[in-house]
């Protein structure tokens, strides 16, 4: 068991040696042509403007905070998950202590509290990445007013009205012409 952790240490040692060896090998071989322009921070060809170490959005902090709470609670659930089956079967270290039903209820209460916490954060709006505000309704630009084309029904109605007008005016017009 502890021998196995030693194996992991050996594994980690080999990994560290591998990464360091690569870095050192590259640092020996690669060219070194230092220039002030090359050391500037990359900004797509523009000259660098200011620092990047500025205040960033608080919501990243909120997310990290909520994560820590949930992760710690899940870590607490691991021992429960490990013994649950043993307790149900009545074997293992807890055999005969009558702790079984207590453990089951306790575990589910804990998950329920987790769900409650999630509901609380959700209701507070900390899970919404896009904050809501009363955005004004979209207005199309008025500089070039939109041309609204008449619908087919309207065109047909117009045609009928014209035809009726022709029917009424037609004979009169003809008479006048005559």
């Amino acid at each position, binding site marked *: 068991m502890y021998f196995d952790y030693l194996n992991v240490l050996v*594994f980690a040692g080999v990994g560290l040696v*591998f990464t360091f060896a690569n870095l050192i090998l590259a640092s020996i071989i690669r060219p070194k042509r230092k220039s002030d322009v090359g050391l500037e*921070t990359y900004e797509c060809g523009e000259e660098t403007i200011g620092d990047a170490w500025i205040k960033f959005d608080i919501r990243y902090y909120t997310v990290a905070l909520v994560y820590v709470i949930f992760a710690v609670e899940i870590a607490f659930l*691991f021992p429960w998950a490990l013994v649950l089956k043993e307790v149900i079967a009545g074997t293992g270290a807890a055999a005969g202590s009558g702790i079984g039903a207590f453990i089951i209820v306790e575990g589910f209460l804990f998950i329920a509290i987790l769900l409650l916490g999630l509901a609380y954060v959700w209701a507070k709006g900390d899970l919404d*990445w896009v904050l809501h505000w009363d955005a004004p309704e979209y207005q199309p630009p008025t500089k070039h007013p939109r041309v609204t084309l008449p619908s087919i029904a309207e065109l047909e109605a117009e045609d009928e009205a014209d035809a009726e007008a022709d029917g009424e005016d037609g004979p009169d017009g003809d008479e006048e012409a005559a």
Partner: protein
Amino acid sequence: MEDFLVILLKVAAIYGGVIGTAALYTLAERKVAAWIQYRIGPNRVGPWGLLQPLADGVKFIFKEELVPAGANKLLFRLAPMMSAVPAMLTIAVVPFAGDMTLFGVDTFGAIAKIDMSAFYVVAIGGLGVYGIILGGWSSNSKYSLMGGLRASAQMVSYELSLLLGILSIVVVSGSADLYDIVDAQSGAIWRWNAFQQPLAFGLFVIATFAETNRHPFDFAECEPELVAGFHTEYSSMKFALFFLGEYCAMIVMASLTTTFFLGGFEVPFWADAPWVIQLAAFGAKTAFFLFLFLWVRWTLPRFRFDQLMSLGWKVMLPLSLLNVFLYGALTSFGAFGD
């Protein structure tokens, strides 16, 4: 003495296997992209371009390295290692095969058999986020900072679903040892956790995509928006280490999905297969998930960041919690008491 030699042999074999797979995987990424887009892909270096990763490696070594003048030098140099080493360390407990005998020494197909290996995996795997956020912050570049922040927020959000998926497996298996978890899935194919817990399987696979910053969740890099995200300022071997860490993390996630949900090294209906065949079965199952990463990358468009966050917190997390609740209750009623 022989024990120690066998362990060194296993360490060498697993490092060789993982780093070799990572190198080939970079080639596979470009080849599969080419095939999906009806192109040929890299084919100049070696037969079918097979030596392309080697050429890339040589190029990385010979490239000039720049540390930006405004950067935090110590953290800037530390970050690539913090990204690559945890990804490789996680593989130490993954069971590649069952019991085996090497040169007369009875051993098993993993570096270490720890009784809390499922917990070890999430503990060490969770360290990978430090490399990304340190690399992003210490560069003192706007693109890097935004990439690092986004990546860390995304990784912590989806890690919860990952943890809860593992938790529900632990509940059903009654052990946090990966070997026991694999044993619990031995025998018939429907005993695999993928069929026993389909909801957890789906959530876990989606979470692995977010954890490894792959499409459709690749907000750490997001080429059209953030140049290269958190490693914009990195060059030469340090960039190569980030790259290695990223591909190792994908291999780790694929092998963990295999172990937790597809029965690991178990061959269906053949309980005591020789270890070579078990290793081959493990490789085949892992290769499927590795291919899935590529397939999805070249098929799906990228999410929007707020969509990503609301998917993680408002859909995946409640579903994962309910899944644990459900399987805890089923176990309590003796549904998995074999």
